[in-house]
């Protein structure tokens, strides 16, 4: 994704919804990281709350479009902001036990997000293993390792500025990359741009939106159309016999219009404005329809189900690498099937790893006699 993002155009306007949460976040972390000379808890918490709020805004509105107010959005936002808040609290607590508790809350929030992503088994597994085993083990170790001498290592931070700067720069970079990729591959923004072209009267503006680059190079709009068709999984040569008629019609229209727009933009003549606008209008509506078809999950291919088929119709992966967003409801069985067929070797190795780790942990932490070298 990094390389893909690197190959995309930078955004044209400053990305405030990205910078504000980052700035607020770094300031709050710096205020909250423990220092022996005391930290300003109130200011840091205030800034932290503001940062989390700004990040929520980024999630809701800044990643390529406003989210619909449906329960998924609400749950997602809640879980995410909870996770991030408690993550920040975890790294800034003085008492390690408090940190462990905050970590537990982070784990629970992430499990909620797992559930939203149709991974119930993982949710359960994570809660059990992390919250049940790992955190408890941590708490046991904290209990066993009481500090004897007076030390306020817990009150000090090693290189707060360095680590905060590095972390937030990395976060900013990743978010910018995600944004760019999403903006490029998002069908919605493409549809919006096509609508803008269809509505504009000025050839110069059209050329700017389309990103016309030269006589022999495809304009950016055409590249995006190509990527969009790839993401939508449109077949290169639609087969009328195999595809659903409505789908087939949409696909052919799309491809015709795409070719015409491509040649028009290559010629780069202002006289072709009307043709370009027509093409853009058609393409916008086609794309929106295709996207809706994808989202609805209707199969694009005519499938005949046999009576004994076990699974729901699974779209042909070769034809449509951008399948409808549907994971099987029988999550555990799908996991098991995939795990023990595709990833059998990895399973065995993971088992061996667990065994070795167990033995290793016992050996390292086991009782030593006095005077032996560890």
């Amino acid at each position: 994704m990094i390389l893909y993002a690197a190959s995309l155009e930078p955004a044209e306007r400053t990305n405030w919804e990205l910078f504000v949460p980052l700035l607020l976040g770094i300031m709050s972390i710096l205020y909250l990281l423990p220092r022996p000379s005391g930290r300003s808890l109130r200011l840091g918490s205030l800034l932290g709350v503001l940062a989390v709020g700004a990040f929520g805004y980024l999630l809701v509105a800044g990643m390529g479009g406003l989210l619909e107010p449906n329960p998924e959005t609400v749950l997602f936002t809640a879980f995410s902001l909870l996770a991030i808040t408690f993550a920040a609290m975890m790294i800034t607590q003085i008492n390690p036990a408090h940190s462990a508790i905050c970590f537990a809350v982070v784990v629970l929030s992430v499990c909620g997000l797992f559930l939203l992503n149709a991974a119930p088994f993982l949710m359960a597994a994570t809660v059990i293993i992390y919250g049940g085993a790992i955190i408890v083990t941590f708490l046991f170790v904290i209990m066993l390792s009481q500090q004897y001498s007076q030390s306020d290592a817990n009150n000090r931070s090693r290189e707060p500025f360095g680590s905060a700067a590095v972390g937030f720069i990395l976060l900013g970079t990743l978010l910018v990359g995600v944004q760019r990729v999403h903006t490029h591959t998002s069908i919605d923004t493409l549809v919006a741009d096509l609508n803008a072209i269809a509505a504009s009267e000025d050839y110069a503006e059209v050329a700017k939106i389309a990103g016309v680059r030269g006589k022999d190079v495809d304009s950016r709009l055409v590249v995006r159309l190509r990527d969009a068709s790839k993401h939508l999984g449109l077949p290169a040569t639609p087969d009328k016999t195999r595809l659903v008629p409505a789908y087939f019609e949409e696909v052919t229209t799309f491809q015709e219009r795409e070719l015409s727009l491509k040649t028009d933009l290559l010629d780069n003549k202002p006289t072709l404005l009307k043709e370009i606008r027509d093409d853009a209008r058609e393409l916008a509506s086609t794309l929106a329809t295709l996207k809706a078809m994808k989202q609805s999950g209707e199969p694009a291919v005519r499938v005949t189900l046999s009576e004994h088929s076990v699974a729901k119709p699974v779209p042909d992966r070769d034809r449509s690498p951008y399948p409808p967003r549907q994971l099987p409801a029988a999550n555990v069985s799908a996991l098991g099937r995939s795990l023990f067929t595709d990833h059998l070797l990895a399973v065995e190795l993971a088992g061996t790893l667990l065994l070795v780790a167990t033995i290793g942990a016992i050996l390292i932490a086991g009782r030593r006699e006095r005077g032996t070298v560890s």
Partner: protein
Amino acid sequence: MTTVGLPHYLAVGAALFCIGAIGFLSRRNLILMFLSAEMMLQGVALNMVAFSRHYGNMHGQIFTMFLIAVAACEAGIALALIISLYRRSRSLDISVWQDLREPDTAPMTDLEPLPKPEPEEDMPRLPVAGREPAHEETYYA
């Protein structure tokens, strides 16, 4: 109007990862460092699961399972090591362990001194009950 999609989950995963990185680099308690590392793994796991949903196959979730397994192993070994280190230095401060430095460099010490412990309040001491306390003889005229 869009629905919650891959980029949103990726953003959250990135945020968790980076916050974990900050915690790992800045806190000096071994336990806290490790917890932050676990949080980084959580962020990655979230990313994996989001990709799994985005592509509609199970590979991401399987990867996440292995990730959990590895995290468990790592937790076990790391805690065993922490206990060993604690036994040798009686402290969970990672700054105690600096012996792998260049021989000529001085060890890093804390610049700010420890805060002075608050002096204990002098509580009044009561004598043992039933005994007369020592006092001067005064004659009352």
